[in-house]
Every structure is written in C-alpha cells, then in structure tokens.
C-alpha cells in the first residue's frame, strides 16, 4: 500500500513473520499512550494529572503506611473485582473465538445473579451448604445459557444481527431483574431498602480469612485452565478457531456452523453468568440495584486485548481491575468521576488496535524533497517507466 501525505511517501509491506516482541512493545506503548491521554483529560478537567494518577494507584494498591501494617485491603478489593471481570471475559472469549459478537455478557451476568438469588431465597434455610451452592451454580449457568441462546438461535434461523440482539437483551434482563428486586422479591422487613433480604449463611462462598476475597478465585482459575485446554487441544476448540478465521473453509470441510454457534453461545452465556453466581454467593449476598456496573462491557475489551487467550485474560483482568478500583477510589477521595476508568480502558484498546497494524505491516517513510517534489517525482517515475520499456 502507498499513501502520500504532503511530501512524505508512506509505504506499507506485510511482514513475513510476526514477532512476539513487536506485539509486546506495541502493547506497552499503547498503555503508555493511554495513560498520557488520561493525564491530558484530567488536566482539562482541572485537576493535577500526576497526583490524580498517583491517587488512582494508591486506591488500587494501598499506600506505604498501609503496607507497613500489612494492610492489603485495597489490593484485595482489586482481586474481588478481578473475579467477575475475568469470568465474563472468559465467557466472551468462547463466542469471540468464532467471531460471534456476543456483547450480552452484562445481561448474562445479571441473569446468573438473578438465578443464584432465586435459588438462595427459596432454599437457603432448607438445604445444606454444598447442595445449595451447587444448585445456585447450575441455575446460574442455565439462566446465562438461555440468555445466550436467544441471539444464537435468531442468528441461525433469521440471520439476525447478534450484536444488536445481545445488547438489547442486556437492557431487558437488567430491567426485569431490577423490577423483581424492587417488586415481588423485595425484603418486606427492609424498610424500603431496594433489594431482597440478605441470604442465610450457607449460601456464602467461603472467604480467605477475614478478607472479602472468596473461593470464586478458584472457579476463575479453573475456568481459565479448562478453556485453555479446550481452545488448544480439543476438536471443538479447533472448529471454533477455524470458523472464526475462515468460516467458508470450515463450512466446506464439513463443520456444522449452526451447531457451533449454538454451543458457543450456550457455553459463553453460561460462563458469563457464573460471574453473577460468584458475585451473589461471594460478596453481595443479596440481589439489589447497582449489580450491573459494566463488568460485561469491560470484559469485551479485556477479551479482545488478550487475543482470547485465557491466561492473558487473567492478567489483563487484573490490570483492568486496578484501573477500575483506582477509579472508584478516586471518586470517593477526590470527587473526580470514576468514568476515567472507562476512558483509560477504551483508550488502551484503541491504541492497541492502531498498534496492531504495525505488528502486521512494516512501514517505510520516504521523504521527498519539498518544493521540487512534484517535478522530481514525476521525472523519476517517468524515468523508471521508460527504463522498463527500453
């Protein structure tokens, strides 16, 4: 490819092999650029950029005096946040592997939380801990799978755009859940508290000591390992990959596209919903407003940046949780809106998308002499052409 901007001739050539180091450098550069960008918009909002960024960092990791007292509260908050984000991103990665654009993770997450809560409300005084948690787990998966099933089946039979349907389902599921939490399921003794009663203790996932970190971490890590194995070694994972990269080739070699879409979305929705289960059983212990804080959307960014690699998803989720928790703390301490976290996340992805180009293409700049550029260029072009003719 060839573009011309003023007197600069820009030439692109596809690289023969993509090097991992370029990709890593591009990623680091992207993070750096997004932080610079964040600093600029913080500056424009009237705050001191460096102090604000440091406050975000402190919000996520704690400060020196806290570390001296072995107080890692902030860091534990980051990990509490990492769990639902990772699980949603893992769920999304299944669908994205075959380029089925599920953006309904938010709704699937809420559906999972709703299912867990319904089970807990019903059985938390009659069932033991393990059967109850298992039932909640299964119900969450089932609810999420149903929500994921809808865009898949519509895609298969009517060719309906899955992006729009899965997004609309987010709104519907969230509105419906909020209606239930405010209405029929509302705690009658809650003095107008918008939400259900707190569930009994045998619906709680065990926590590590006195922290808020719960055993959801194990679910998260286990899921990542399973998905890594599935993507890498199973026939189904291979089919998903082929259908994502070249659907026609997959179709022609006898893969059943519809069946794959269906299963990918059932699993994808189910996994995302498990995040709702860990949220209810692990930390919130009741269904209330404000459950949907955008995990499902951040998870999309995480999944894509990680290039759908489950272990990279773990890493990036942690990083994004740092940004999100840092943003939350910022809002508490310095009244700067926490939306800064969303800006940084979006910026990182945009910079990486731009940078990816340089991973696949080699760029050559050719500076032409100003002033005489037109004539000289024309001459050289003509000359080479004539030369070819002669």
């Amino acid at each position, binding site marked *: 490819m060839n573009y011309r901007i003023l007197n600069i001739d820009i030439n692109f050539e596809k690289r023969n092999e993509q090097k991992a180091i370029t990709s890593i450098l591009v990623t680091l550069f992207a993070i750096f650029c997004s932080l610079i960008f964040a600093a600029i918009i913080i500056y424009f909002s009237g705050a001191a950029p460096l102090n604000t960024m440091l406050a975000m960092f402190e919000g996520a990791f704690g400060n020196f005096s806290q570390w001296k007292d072995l107080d890692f509260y902030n860091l534990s908050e980051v990990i509490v946040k990492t769990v639902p984000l990772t699980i949603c991103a893992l769920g999304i990665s299944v669908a994205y592997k075959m380029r089925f654009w599920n953006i309904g993770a938010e709704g699937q997450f809420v559906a999972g939380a709703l299912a867990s809560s319904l089970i807990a409300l019903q059985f938390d005084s009659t069932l033991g801990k393990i059967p109850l948690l298992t039932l909640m787990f299964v119900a969450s998966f089932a609810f999420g799978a149903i929500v994921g099933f809808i865009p898949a089946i519509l895609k298969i039979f009517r060719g309906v755009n899955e992006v729009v*349907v899965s997004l609309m389902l987010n709104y519907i599921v969230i509105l419906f859940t909020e209606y239930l939490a405010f209405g029929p399921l509302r705690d009658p003794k809650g003095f107008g508290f918008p939400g259900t009663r707190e569930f009994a203790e045998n619906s709680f996932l065990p926590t590590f000591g006195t922290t808020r970190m719960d055993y959801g971490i194990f679910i998260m890590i286990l899921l990542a390992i399973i998905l890594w194995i599935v993507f890498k070694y199973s026939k189904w994972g291979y089919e998903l990959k082929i259908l994502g990269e070249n*659907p026609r080739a997959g179709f022609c070699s006898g893969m059943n596209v519809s069946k794959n879409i269906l299963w990918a979305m059932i699993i994808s929705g189910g996994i995302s919903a498990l995040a709702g289960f860990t949220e209810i059983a692990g930390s919130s212990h009741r269904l209330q407003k404000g459950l949907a804080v955008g995990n499902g959307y951040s998870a999309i960014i995480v999944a894509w940046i990680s290039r759908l690699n489950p272990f990279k998803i773990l890493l990036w989720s942690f990083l994004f949780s740092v940004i999100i928790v840092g943003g939350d703390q910022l809002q508490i301490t310095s009244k700067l809106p926490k939306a*800064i976290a969303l800006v940084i996340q979006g910026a990182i992805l945009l910079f990486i998308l731009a940078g990816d180009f340089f991973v696949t293409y080699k760029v050559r700049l050719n500076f032409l002499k100003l002033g005489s550029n037109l004539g000289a260029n024309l001459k050289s072009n003509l000359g080479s052409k004539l030369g070819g003719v002669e």
Partner: protein
Amino acid sequence: MNLEFILTTSQIIILASVSLLLATLGAIISEKSGVTNLSIDGTMLVGALTAFVITKVTGSPYIGVLVAMIASGLLSLIHATLTTYFLSNQIVTGLALNFFAMGLANFFGKNYVGEVSEKLPVLFANFDILVFISFFLAIFTYFIFNNTKIGLNLVAVGEDPRVADNQGVNPFKYRFWAQIIGGMIVGLGGAHLSLSYTPGWVDGMTSGRGWIAIALVIFSFWNPMRAILGTLLFGGISFLQFHFQTIGTNIPAAFFNMLPYLMTILVMIFFSGVKSGSLMGAKINIGPSSDIGPSSLGRHYIREDR
C-alpha cells in the same frame, strides 16, 4: 378521540423520533460505505454533552449544535482512521470507541448533571429546527444516494470497493469521509436529546438509542426513506410509554421501559430477511453482515490482496 388529541399525539411521536432518525441516518451513511459502525451510542452521548455544555457556556443553542457536530465528527475521525487506514477489526473498533466515548461523556458531564441551559427555540408547533433538518436530511440523503455521482460512488464502494477502485473511485477516501459525515449527523441526534427532547444532561442519557438506531438501519434496509418509517414506529412506542405512565395502570413501569428493546428485537426478527435460497449463506455468514446490506459491509479493502 378528538382532533386535538391526534395533533398532540403526532407531535409527541415526531419529537420522540427526531434523535433516533438523525442517529439512524448517520449510521446509514457510514455503513453505506461498507464500514460497520457500532460507536453510534457513544457518539450520540458525546454530541449530547457537547451541545449542552457549549449552549450553557455561550448561551446560544445553535452554536451548541454546531460544536456538537464538530465534536462527534472528531470522534468519528478515530473510527474512520482505524478502520480504513489501519485495517482494524470494525466491530471491535466500534465497541472500543463506544466505551471510550461513553467514558469521556460521563467524565466531563459529571459536573453538569441537573443543570439547566437554553433549549432549542421552537419554530413552529413545538418543533425546533432539528425536527425539520432531520426529515429534510432523510430525503436529501435518499436523493444523494440515488441521483448524484458522489452518492452512487459511495454505494459502489460499499458494494465492491475493488470494482470502484478500478473505476477510479478512491474507496479509502469515500469510507473515511462517510464515517466522519455520518458521525456528525449522529452527533446532531445527540444534540436534539440534550437541547430539546429531554433537556439537560444525565449519565448515559441516550438509554441505548444508538443501538436501536443500528437495528433501525437494518430495518430500513439501508434506505433513508424507510428509516423515517422505522423511527416514527419507535416514536410511537415512546408515546405509548409516556401515555400509559401518565394515565396509570397496574402494569409495572419496568415493562414499559422494556418496550423499545423488546420491539427492537422483534423488528430485527421480522426484517433481518435472509434472501430466499441463501440459507447456506446465512449459515456461513458469521458476523453481523447480512444479505440485504452493502455487500462489502464489515470487510476491509486492501489493494494488494487478491
């Protein structure tokens, strides 16, 4: 059922559909060039906030509208550059930009929640200037697409960029500018929200209108005239919502709030027509491209690739 009721009803329906119509038109223009654009909602939010803030600062809603167009045009510049020149995945780019814009709008809008500013002045029967502009633009775009060289070139680029390129039409330029002009019109839609329909600024005030617009693009088969029909339909739903809430029913408000989203899914089911005989195509077509839209929708154009 008297004349006055019918008049007010139609006024409400038209007012409710203006922002949606503008967003849909913007999306149609950018998608006609063959680029999927999922950043509509975020662009609308940025348009809405800019219009509100600038109006508050300068006191003139018209300047607010103009600056909103520029701001959303600048935002679309990112989408245009990344998708046409940097060959990034169009869907992911759109989503990323959408979140980015949402974050920006919520970040800068924080201090403006609950404030008031000038509204767009009413010209005629409760209608402000954007009402007329939106319907005029729909007809105008239709005319451009079908009767002018620029429009036909744009459609050609959307259908098959390689053929267009061979005919001397530069697909990169058309795709680039279609994104920016489309984005500016989407921003107008946002401006109508914050300056006229629901004056003021609230976090996430589009409540998914941008996504409904994307559904309407499909409903209207990428035809601006049909877009009018679709947006009026959704304007009617907003009216129903409004009407039932004022007269009061036993049905909880949540279900009325769900209506537009349910309706969107229904509309998609009925109008995402897969062309007859191409069921196999539908099975292969993973990704949001469909048989009725521009043929190259969602695909990159790389000159060297054969």
